[in-house]
């Protein structure tokens, strides 16, 4: 049991070190700064600029949170404060099933519904033409994927608000909505931020679903209707090709390492924030 425990605790470090060792090869050749901020991606010529991929990742991640954030917040308040029993009875299984659907299914759904929707209905509204395989499609699919995840955390956050606080607010004459707006949201604010942070990091690492709808063109996207190429998709798409070129292999492992670091940092910050708030309950 102790061995298992040590193994689990060491695992994140082992993963980090393993990926770092593999990416050292390319770091000896090119500086990290140059790799992250150069936009030239020509593996065969030995040019590995991650900038377009990082920008794409940021685009889809931010869009997904912009969509999922408000929906989750509103739903969480609804479910914890107002919802009738029948709504709860529907929503609990709905959230569970949404959380359990594999990402490849979200990808299939994206190509079936979201991609045509964008190319036929949304893009014409903005007078642009697109195949639909775009940053926006990636953002929407990701939004649906992180909704159950963020929603569950938000529900927990709202549940931890002490009842006394609500009672005090109501007893001085505030209405229910005023209590929610001025007391609950303020009290839950750090929790809300950390739920969003965890959602962001989940979006940032999601691979297959995004890969299927985002278009995968390696240039810096100029708008939401243009195709993009996020980091995880880059790693997944080039497996096989990379084996023959050591430097290429190393570059992709570096991409995975960067992904790991970003996600772990976001997770750390969000979880510390949650723990801090719970302590002052």
């Amino acid at each position, binding site marked *: *049991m*102790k061995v298992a*425990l040590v193994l*689990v605790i060491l*695992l*994140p470090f082992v*993963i980090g070190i*393993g*990926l770092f*060792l593999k990416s050292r090869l390319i770091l000896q050749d090119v500086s990290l700064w140059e790799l992250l901020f150069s936009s030239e991606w020509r593996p065969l010529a030995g040019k590995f600029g991650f900038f377009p991929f990082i920008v794409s990742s940021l685009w889809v991640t931010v869009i997904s949170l912009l969509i999922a954030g*408000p*929906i989750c917040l*509103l*739903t969480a*308040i609804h*479910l914890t404060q*107002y*919802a009738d029993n029948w*709504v709860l009875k*529907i929503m609990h299984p*709905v*959230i*569970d*099933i*949404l959380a*359990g659907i*594999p*990402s*490849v*299914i979200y990808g*299939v*759904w994206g*190509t*079936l*519904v979201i991609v045509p929707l964008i190319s036929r209905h949304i893009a014409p509204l903005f007078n642009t033409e697109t195949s639909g395989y775009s940053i926006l499609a990636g953002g929407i699919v990701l939004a*649906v994927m992180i*909704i159950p995840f963020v929603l569950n955390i938000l529900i927990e956050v709202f549940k931890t608000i002490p009842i006394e606080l609500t009672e005090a607010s109501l007893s001085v004459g505030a*209405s*229910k*909505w*005023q209590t929610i707006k001025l007391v609950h949201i303020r009290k839950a604010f750090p929790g809300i931020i950390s739920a969003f942070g*965890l959602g962001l990091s*989940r979006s940032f*690492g999601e*691979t*297959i679903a995004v890969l*299927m709808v985002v278009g995968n063109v390696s240039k810096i996207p100029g708008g939401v209707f243009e195709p993009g190429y996020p980091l*995880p998709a880059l*790693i*997944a798409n080039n*497996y096989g090709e990379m084996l023959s070129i050591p430097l290429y292999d190393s570059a*992709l492992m570096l991409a*995975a390492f960067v*992904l*790991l670091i970003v*996600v772990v940092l976001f*997770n*750390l910050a969000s*979880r510390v924030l949650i*723990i801090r708030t719970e302590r002052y309950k």
Partner: protein
Amino acid sequence: MKRQTLIKAEEIFFRVIMFMSSMIIAATLFLIIFSIFYKGLPSLSWDMVSQTPKGGFYFGKEGGILNAIVGSIYLAGGSTLLALVIGLPLALFINIHLVSKKKLVNAIRFFLDLLWGIPSIVYGAFGFTLMIYLGLKTSLLAGIITVTLFILPIMVRAMDEVIKTIPIGLLEASYSLGSTKSETAYRIFFKQTIPGMVTAILLSFGRAIGDAASVLFTTGYTDHMPTSLTQPTATLPLAIFFQLSVPIKEVQNRAYASAAILVFIILIISILSRIFARKFQKNQIK
């Protein structure tokens, strides 16, 4: 008076959009399941689930994805079993042996949550490095190891949440009757929480069977039935992914049918875990 009505109007407005956002979420789930079944069920045939890919399968000729279904079940089953062997003692250990060390337990939970947050593609890339280091080829075994690492934190945390609900009084009662820590762990705590444990196992199994990014590098893909641990093995998510990327209508339709099969499996797992979760709530000591 005017202010009062304004506040009331604001509340009504927000109640409406809050209700709508809940309904949007529910509608999205139904849309996902409906669109997959609508596209997938017409192409679903007995051949799909009873045959392996024949020559020209990827040009729309005969065959099925039995190899991927069986491969996925082997992979998810194997890794769930392995994760269970490591995870169950770990979850019990945290809650029984370390029960007095609150800080340590919280630190371990923090670590597990952190591991849970690591994207599966990173596990895949790490599994791939590990494979090369150990001299393994893309194989069922490499896949099982990688997926085990991926689902272990999920399983341990889920079990931990279940065991946490047992009141400390039960632990004290068990000790006072002279049982050892291990007896308390397996005879009392485990027995008491079996339905909850099954839910945790099903959750991990669902994760393992549905994930594509972690097996892409490690399990590989083949058109043959999996026969040994050292052979590459097809998996359902990758079967869907590869078929969908072929620009031929028949093959894409079969991708939708495969997606319908996967959704069906996930729904069954979800229903089963609901049943066990309900059972667990009935058994719970308060």
